[in-house]
């Protein structure tokens, strides 16, 4: 009942209740699909497209209406369970903005581009519920609400993997579910203990409000550190960080293409987003204290993920392990605790969503054509499907981090920030760029280059991308190129929120043991000025140095110009 009141309450404050609509519209879409007859496959898809599409459109509107300051915007508040201080409290700031937009746009994209092979009705219901869950996580400013959405997400994904997946799908789905549940259980304990301890120490009523708790840090350092670890474990599983990552390759490999795209595009960001919003923001001191641990795990993830990816025999599994490496970068940037690092991490979340999402799409297209994902059974696709190969190349280069494409921006900022804060970690992490080239190019060679593999007996000319497939891939490609060449609009919207977060960390760690690691800033001059100034100073010292030479070596020349004059010929 209360949920319905949100619309009324929100409409009093702003002209349009953006966030409730964003979160609940897909759920209504799911309801709408549920109410249609089973056989009407076209109608299911149409409804899903319309509902997720409108959500996407609204998220784009949010992007344009967003103001580049560090504040939470489009706030919507509504009492939910008053006695426990639980609220519907949602807002968007620079850090969550692009994740909201990504969630808004990726789902209609998936609905339009990828068709399930059976059980259409249930499929569209789950996909839309998943969008509601993901959207809810990114806008939550209330711990309880966050937890609810964080858990809701599991259910649709479980069914998407288990029901529409390939091969050992049930195993993968169960593993995914149980593994993340384990993390969440600890998080629930952490949330409750945090709330209770906070109200006791601060002497206030029980509240789950994120901003209130963060702005009034009352609990002791030790308890904060313990509670932080509880949160961190849940996020680490969700990211996933080494060594709790093994659910990911299974889930990714067995999931249907749509599931993989959503998993890589949005769901893996729940963990990294959680680290920034609920780790760094709620527990600045603990984050700073445990930063070396998470930096190490991040670096291990980067290198380890890349090494294991290299040896994979299944193309989809390879992409899954590459995700682990990329997410290692995000964690590295987050725990650099400076502007470049966190901004880079935020950017990388979006970029990873685009490029790995696109990679999974392409792997799905290859699978549809060749009915195998085993790298050794593929080969020579480039000859008969040049456009597919070209698209794959572009996405692959973005994933490798080629400057000019989106992947580079985040990776570079992360490494720059990490180097400023902890140089040795950054040096190691940067070797990840070598390994990324190794595993992706090697895979590309085996899948696309060479003569076409004909040992299956069947006709092996792979059909190229159809016009429809080109059209559906186009938005991802456009995003990859645009964000690589002109990331400024994105960076500008993210930066104030990141600055505010870093400032918050600095203020909260009251004993001054933490200051944002920043580079030394030296002289700034234009090249023209520099040339003129050095010319002036040089013309003085020039004669001088010539003089010295004359004394030292006694060539009898007036200065070095004359000397070289005589140097050639006479």
């Amino acid at each position: 009942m209360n949920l319905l009141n949100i619309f009324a309450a929100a409409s009093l404050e702003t002209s349009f209740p953006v966030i409730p609509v964003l979160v609940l519209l897909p759920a209504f879409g799911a309801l709408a699909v549920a109410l249609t007859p089973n056989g009407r496959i076209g109608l299911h898809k149409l409804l899903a497209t319309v509902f997720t599409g409108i959500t996407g459109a609204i998220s784009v509107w949010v992007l344009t209406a967003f103001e580049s300051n560090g504040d939470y915007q489009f706030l919507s508040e509504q009492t939910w369970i008053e006695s426990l201080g639980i609220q519907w409290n949602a807002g968007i700031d620079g850090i969550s903005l692009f994740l909201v937009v990504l969630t808004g746009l990726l789902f209609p994209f998936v609905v339009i581009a990828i068709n399930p092979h059976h059980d259409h009705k249930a499929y569209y219901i789950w996909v839309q519920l998943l969008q509601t869950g993901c959207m809810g996580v990114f806008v939550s400013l209330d711990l309880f609400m966050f937890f609810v959405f964080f858990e809701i997400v599991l259910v649709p994904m479980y069914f998407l993997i288990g029901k529409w997946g390939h091969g050992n799908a049930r195993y993968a789905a169960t593993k995914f579910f149980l593994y993340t549940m384990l993390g969440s259980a600890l998080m629930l304990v952490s949330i409750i203990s945090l709330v209770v301890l906070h109200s006791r120490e601060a002497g206030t009523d029980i509240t789950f409000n994120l901003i209130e708790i963060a702005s009034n840090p009352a609990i002791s350092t030790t308890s904060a550190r313990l509670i932080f670890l509880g949160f961190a474990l849940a996020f680490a599983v969700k990211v996933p960080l080494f060594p709790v990552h093994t659910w990911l390759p299974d889930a990714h490999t067995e999931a249907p293409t749509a599931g993989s795209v959503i998993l890589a595009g949005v769901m893996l960001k729940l963990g990294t987003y959680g680290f920034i919003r609920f780790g760094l923001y709620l527990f600045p001191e603990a984050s700073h204290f445990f930063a070396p641990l998470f930096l190490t795990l991040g670096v291990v993830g980067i290198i380890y993920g890349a090494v294991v990816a290299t040896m994979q025999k299944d193309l989809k599994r390879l992409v899954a392990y590459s995700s682990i490496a990329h997410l290692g970068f995000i964690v590295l940037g987050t725990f650099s605790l400076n502007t470049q690092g966190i901004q880079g991490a935020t950017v990388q979340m979006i970029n990873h969503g685009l490029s790995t999402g696109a990679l999974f799409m392409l792997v799905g297209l290859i699978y549809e054509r060749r009915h195998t994902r085993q790298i050794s059974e593929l080969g020579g696709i480039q000859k008969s499907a040049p456009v597919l190969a070209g698209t794959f190349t572009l996405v692959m280069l973005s994933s490798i981090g080629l400057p000019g494409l989106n992947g580079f921006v985040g990776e570079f900022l992360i490494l720059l920030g990490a180097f400023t804060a902890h140089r040795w970690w950054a040096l190691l992490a940067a070797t990840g760029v070598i390994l990324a080239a190794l595993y992706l190019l090697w895979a590309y060679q085996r899948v696309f280059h060479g003569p076409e593999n004909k040992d299956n007996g069947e006709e092996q000319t792979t059909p190229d991308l159809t016009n429809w497939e080109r059209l559906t891939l186009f938005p991802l490609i456009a995003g990859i190129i645009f964000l690589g060449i002109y990331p400024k609009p994105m960076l500008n919207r993210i930066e104030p929120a990141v600055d505010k977060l870093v400032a918050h960390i600095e203020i909260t760690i009251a004993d001054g043991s933490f200051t944002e690691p920043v580079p030394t800033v030296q002289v700034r001059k234009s090249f023209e000025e520099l040339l003129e100034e050095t010319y002036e100073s040089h013309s003085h010292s020039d004669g001088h140095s010539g003089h010295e030479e004359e004394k030292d070596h006694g060539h009898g020349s007036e200065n070095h110009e004359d000397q070289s004059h005589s140097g050639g010929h006479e």
Partner: protein
Amino acid sequence: MENLVWLIPTFPLLGFVLILLFGRRLGEPNAGWLATTMVTGSFISSLCVFLGMAGKNSEERAYEITLFEWIPSGELNIGLGFLADPLSITMALFITGVSALIHMYAIGYMHGDPNFSKFFIYLNLFVFSMLMLVLGDNLLITFLGWEGVGACSYFLISFWHQDPANASAGKKAFVTNRVGDWGFMVAMFLLFFNIGSLKYSDIFSSVIQVDALTQTTATAVVVMLFIGAAGKSAQFPLYLWLPDAMAGPTPVSALIHAATMVTSGVYLLTRMNPVLAEAAGWSTDLIWIIGLFTALFAATAAVAQNDIKKVLAYSTVSQLGFMFVAVGSGLYVAAIFHMITHAFFKALLFLGAGSVIHGMHEEQDMRKYGALKKVMPITAGTFIIGWLAISGIPPFSGFWSKDEVLLAAWNENKVAWVLLLIAAIMTAFYMSRLVFMTFFGEKRWGEYETENHEQDEQLSSSESEERHTFDPHESPVLMWFPLVALAGLAAAAGILNLPFSHDTKFLEKWLEPILFGNEVHILASTSTKWLLAVIAITGATIGVLSASYVYLKNRVNPTQIELPILQDAWKFDRSVTTFMGGPGRKVFDWITWFDRTVIDGAVNGAGKLTQGIGIRLKTTQTGLIRTYALGMVIGAVAIIAYFVSRMGF
């Protein structure tokens, strides 16, 4: 006219986009002509910028323009900006000039290739990236170009990807280059950490005016930049990719792997000369020592290669070593001078080799050439000019620039000079060997089958029949015109920097402002310089004559010189490959095994354990009340016992 600088990379970018969109419709040869026109437009804009700049005083020859902000984040502010100064314009001029000629050549060379237009997509993208590399006003734009040329090099080496060897060569080039890129990135991080900017003007003014870098930092930056440069410019031990890169079409070898991309390491270090000047002596020593070693090492390998392109590849590695000797000795002008002349004559040699390969129906083994002078007069004539230039015979361009480099080595260290001279003599020797085996002597084609039975078996009968009517021919005008143009440049480029008087050292005067007084002064007297030049000429002549003794007059059996170990380039490449394929791969395999068995095993084990415990516990739920009652009693007794023991009577 400097404000036109943004036009220079815009032309090839436009070409890239146009051919990407309409390439198939344009078809052959129009796509090629479009690409060539775009690069020519780029050359003309470079010329305009150059002329505008030349009209100014030397201290005013710099122009910066920022098109838009690329990556702003906190203190970091990277703009997409260009810097036109004497160095970048020099680079842009010869890059666009040579590229235009090679584009034109490629129209002829790629004739009939099913992916004709695709080739020019990559080629134009390459020129764009290369121009970004040299024209960028900050390190990150240079890095953008740096990675861009690497990617294009990858595309073009594996252009004929259906042969797995070509595909592997492309991958190897990219991955090896990435090792260098790691160094480049770390150097950027260090500079950003200490200076807070990656813009060249900020870095230089901080370094020169407020001494922003400590010696240790500057040294670290230089070493890291050198790792980057060594990757791109194929210095030991990262040279490995370049000989393999010959798998690409010959115009690619000429453009990317001889004239332009491989010199970007030299450009980078020259550009960063203020930082090099701050660094500890050992780091610059490292540069010339590695350069010297590479020059010698590659020269020995070049002596024993039978593939015409492999000879030229090792020769390129060796000549790049020469350039690094000059850079490490602080004689940047000599390095840039040699880079330019090398671009002309090595592009010429590669294109000439391509023309020979084309005429010989894709045969690359020099042992099957011979006496091609008569059938391919233009190719032979121009090739001979290139040969004389690289061998260091005056008055061709290579002599002048190599003489400067040798002088740089002399200035740095006398032993270095001796060793470099040996490398120069070997250069003359192996290039003469190539020329004699290809254009002179007896013809070894035509009657080919009767000599080589073992290879004959591999040929299908139809192919052997083709061989009977084997007919080498001169290449079409599209291909020989660039040869003639480059031959002219290779012959005459020495006038850029004649050592006779300060007034004839145009290049030195031109580059002086951007070297900020960091160019080392040569201490040798005039008479010493003369003597060195005479020795260099004598050395080159000895090299040529001894090659003629072996390969023209056949007085010595070539197998005594072409040792197998040299053919294998001292087995270095093979050892690295064996290591990577053996122990390296084992480590990777082991980690993968660890992931599957230990980490995932633990997870599944925990699952199994829980399941197991559940099954065991299930048996306790018997449903029999007396069992439960017994349990309760035991429990109650235990609790009571505990409290009783704690009370302590």
